[in-house]
Structure formats: structure tokens, C-alpha cells
């Protein structure tokens, strides 16, 4: 049914740390690897070795340059996948009921057997989280690795989404965001986790942790604890340079 549940018992989702993400794209690769051979239709590629390769991905990493008013520019790597919104516009637009949000854990999924491939849900998503597979002609999206997280055939350590399991810099965290005591909820509270495009009213479950304040190399005196002990005894040059300085002053 494409009406949204009024509430979900749990809100499984991701917390993505923009401070520690190094932009290695390992999550992209592991996501594609797991999801092309498990839940639903494979994630196809078109012209993969040709001049214009293109393919279906459930997770992509953007990179942004942020230029503060004062100081040097920062580079922020920005992984983006489905945010499993509480108020998911992609679900309600679906004409067939293929798109749905689960009441038990809040995961947004597509039933690929009833998807007619109209593409309306991808239009409704502001985040670009849904991609129509060009080979299977059905809508693909992040399943939060629903076939891993409850899979008792896997060792417990692997029962998290593939992207979280593979992240080498611990920038991705998985958990229940409805539980205020969960690790992810505490992380969000401690680091000021934020919603993307809050004005769109989608109420995303996934949160992003903003980059921490950077050191300012042009203001090292403010943070240099040794500076008082290393105060220069003179700021006048000595020897030949001292003579040159005085000579040039007199000209």
C-alpha cells in the first residue's frame, strides 16, 4: 500500500560522518557488489568498458568545496543514498503499491514484481536516491541491506549494511534512530546531526554529521601552547642583514 504508516516501531537508518569520510568510494563499490547479486534485479551497467559508461548505483559519493568567508577552502566528501524518510514522497506517488515503507523498521522498499517502471517516485525524491535500472526497467534503491541486517546465516558482525561494514574510516554508522539511547542517536545528539533539504518536508531518518571545526594554519598563535616560551628575543635582523636593513633605511 502506498499510503505511509502513521508511525514506525523502529527507524533503522544511517548516520554519515562528513568529518571522517575520506571519499574513497569503498561504500559505493561494496554496495554495488552486494546488491547486484542479492535482493532483487541486478544493478546493471550500460557500455561499462566503452566510451560512455553508465550504470545503476544505490549509493554515490559527491565531493564539495566549501569556501568560508574567512580562511581556506575545505573539501567535503559526501556519500548519498536513500534517507528512508518518515514522510517519503516517493512512496505516496506510486500508482501500483510497489513502493512502500515498512511499519516494523521504517525501511523504504520497492516490490520489483509490481513496479511498472513509470519513474514517478524518482521524480518525487529530492535526493536522487532512486534510479531506474536500464536493463530490468524497474526502480532500484537502497534497501538498507535488508537481506544482511536480519540474516542469521551471516556472522553477527556482518549484519549491517554493506557500506557500513566496509567503510575504512568509520564514517558510516547503522542503527535505530527512534531509540534515543542507541549509539547512532547519541552520535547525532553529540555532533549536531542534520537533515538534508529540511525545507522539502521529507523528514529523513538518515542524518549527516557536519565537519568539525578545522585548524587554522594562519592563526596558529591562538592555539600554540609553546608560543610564550619561544617568544623572539629580538625582531631585528643581525650581522650582514642587520647592516643591510639599517643601510637601506638610511637611503
Amino acid at each position, binding site marked *: 500500500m502506498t499510503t505511509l504508516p502513521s508511525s514506525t516501531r523502529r527507524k533503522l537508518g544511517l548516520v554519515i560522518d562528513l568529518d571522517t569520510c575520506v571519499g574513497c568510494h569503498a561504500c559505493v563499490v561494496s554496495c554495488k557488489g552486494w546488491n547486484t547479486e542479492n535482493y532483487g534485479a541486478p544493478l546493471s551497467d550500460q557500455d561499462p568498458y566503452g566510451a560512455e559508461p553508465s550504470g545503476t548505483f544505490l549509493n554515490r559519493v559527491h565531493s564539495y568545496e566549501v569556501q568560508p568567508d574567512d580562511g581556506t577552502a575545505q573539501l567535503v566528501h559526501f556519500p548519498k543514498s536513500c534517507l528512508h524518510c518518515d514522510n517519503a514522497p516517493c512512496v505516496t506517488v506510486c500508482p*501500483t503499491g510497489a513502493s512502500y515503507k515498512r511499519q516494523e523498521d521504517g525501511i523504504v522498499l520497492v516490490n520489483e514484481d*509490481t513496479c511498472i517502471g513509470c519513474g*514517478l517516485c524518482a*521524480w518525487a525524491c529530492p535526493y536522487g536516491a532512486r534510479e531506474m535500472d536500464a536493463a530490468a526497467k524497474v526502480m532500484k534503491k537502497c534497501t538498507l541491506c535488508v537481506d544482511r541486517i536480519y540474516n542469521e546465516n551471516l556472522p553477527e558482525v556482518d549484519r549491517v549494511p554493506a557500506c557500513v561494514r566496509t567503510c575504512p574510516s568509520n564514517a558510516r554508522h547503522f542503527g535505530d534512530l527512534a531509540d534515543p539511547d542507541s549509539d547512532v542517536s547519541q552520535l547525532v545528539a553529540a555532533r549536531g546531526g542534520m537533515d538534508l533539504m529540511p525545507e522539502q518536508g521529507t523528514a529523513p531518518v538518515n542524518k549527516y554529521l557536519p565537519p568539525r571545526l578545522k585548524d587554522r594554519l594562519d592563526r596558529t598563535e591562538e592555539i600554540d601552547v609553546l608560543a610564550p616560551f619561544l617568544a623572539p628575543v629580538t625582531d631585528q635582523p643581525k650581522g650582514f642583514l642587520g647592516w643591510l636593513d639599517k643601510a637601506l633605511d638610511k637611503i
Partner: protein
Amino acid sequence: MHPAPSIIAFSTLSGLGFGLLFWLGIGMPGSTGLVAFVFFAIAYVLAGGGLIASAFHLGHPERGLLAFTQWRSSWLSREAVCAVATLIIMGLYAVGRVFFAADWFVLGWLGAALSLGTVFTTSMIYTQMKTVPRWYSPLTPALYLTLAIGGGALLAGQVIWALGLLVLASALQLAWWWQGDRAFAASGTTMATATGLGHIGTVRAFEPPHTGPNYLLREMVFVIARKHALKLRIIAFALGYALPLALLLAPFSHWIGLTAVLCHIIGILTSRWLFFAEAEHVVGLYYGKR
């Protein structure tokens, strides 16, 4: 947004077809027999042909019947239900008109209401898209409905109504363009809110996630021919509104009427092409594009 030819043809032609069905349903013109048959045939070719064209853009048209199930939440599903209900009700009404010279007016008015409902639900598919600020406006259904009824009046030979409605539609078209050009900025969605990094400084897309194109860029970030938008708007306005209005004011003949209809269709097709080609989806911001 990517202007799929099937969707442009569908929304233009079926809009006209359902507009004509509206006028036939309320008995204007109240013709019977062969003349009524020709009128209904034109309406069904336009409305039904448009519906069939729209099925071409589906990935799995063979599952199309499922699209009738989610009318409680989905405007696309409501459109499918409305369209089929209209075609069935008006089909029965047409039987009365063509074969029995009868005016089963209850069916006719019901069919007319459903015709307008179909056009309205079509327009709401686009209007509901908060992600496309240009469409997210009450002016969108107003324009769709006025165009359908006005174009329908043109086809139904209701010259006075066609004149008034086309004048109104042209004003709505200009208002829609005017508000659409400001809608993205007014929506408040920017690269800063998209990335949540605006509190640090000015955000610029540094590197996209991939070197090639993808579905999102092809579907949502269609930029081809935007540079011709103003010329195309002039063409759309001249052919879709100004020329048909001028022809309607001339002494009536069937050839002039036909020319007016063809001009109108070409103009509205152009305007519908722009409806998609000029529409900017907020996902483009993630790519530093509009």
C-alpha cells in the same frame, strides 16, 4: 526534466480529447447520428491515443492494470481510474447520441465531470512535485484545465466559449511562466540546504560521483535547448493562443476552424515541451547544476 515525447503527446492530445468530451457531455453541440459519431470519434482518438502513448514510457506496461489500485494516495492512479471511467461513461452516452438520438443527460454530465477530473488528476501528478518548484503551484492545474476546456471548445465549434477560454488560458500561461521563472529561488532549496554545509561557507560542486552520465542526470537535469526557451515561448504563445484567437474572430469556415485547431495543437505541444525542458529538479543541486 527530460521531455519524453510520449508524455508530451499524451498530455496535449488527451487534454484536448477530454476537453472535447466535456463539451459533448453537456450537450454542446447536441448533435446526433453521424455528426455525433464524428465528434465522439475525434474525442476518443485524441483521449485514448494519448493514453496509449503514455503507456510507451512505462518500463513494464504489461503490469499497467496495477496502476488502478492506489487511488487513495497516488495522483497517477487516480488519473488512470478517472480516464477509464470517463471513456466508459462517455461511451455509453455516445451510444445514445449516435444510435438513438437520445440525450441521456445524467450520463452526459457525469462524463463531463469525469473528463474534467481526468485533466485535473493529470495536472496534479506534476503539481504535487515539490522537487520541481516550477510545477509546484496552483497555476499548473488552472492552466491545464483552462487549456483542455478551451481547446475542447475550439474542437466542439463553441466559438464564443473558445474565444473567452483561450484569452483566459493565455493569461494563465503568461502568469505560469512568470511565477515559474521565480519558483526555484522562492523554494528556498539551495546547494547549502542540499548539502547542509552552508553554515561553513559557499558550497561548490568539486567532483561528481562518477565520470559518466547517469539516470538522474538524464531524467532530471535535462538542459538541452534551454537557451532557446524564449524563442520557443514566443512560438508557443503565437501558435497556441494568438493565432487561433485571430482566426476565431475571422468569419467562420471549416478550413479556418481546422487551421485554428492545428495551430493550437502545435503551440500547446511546444508549450508542453517547455513545461518539461525548462523544469528544474532540485536533485541537480547535488551535481552543481540546475
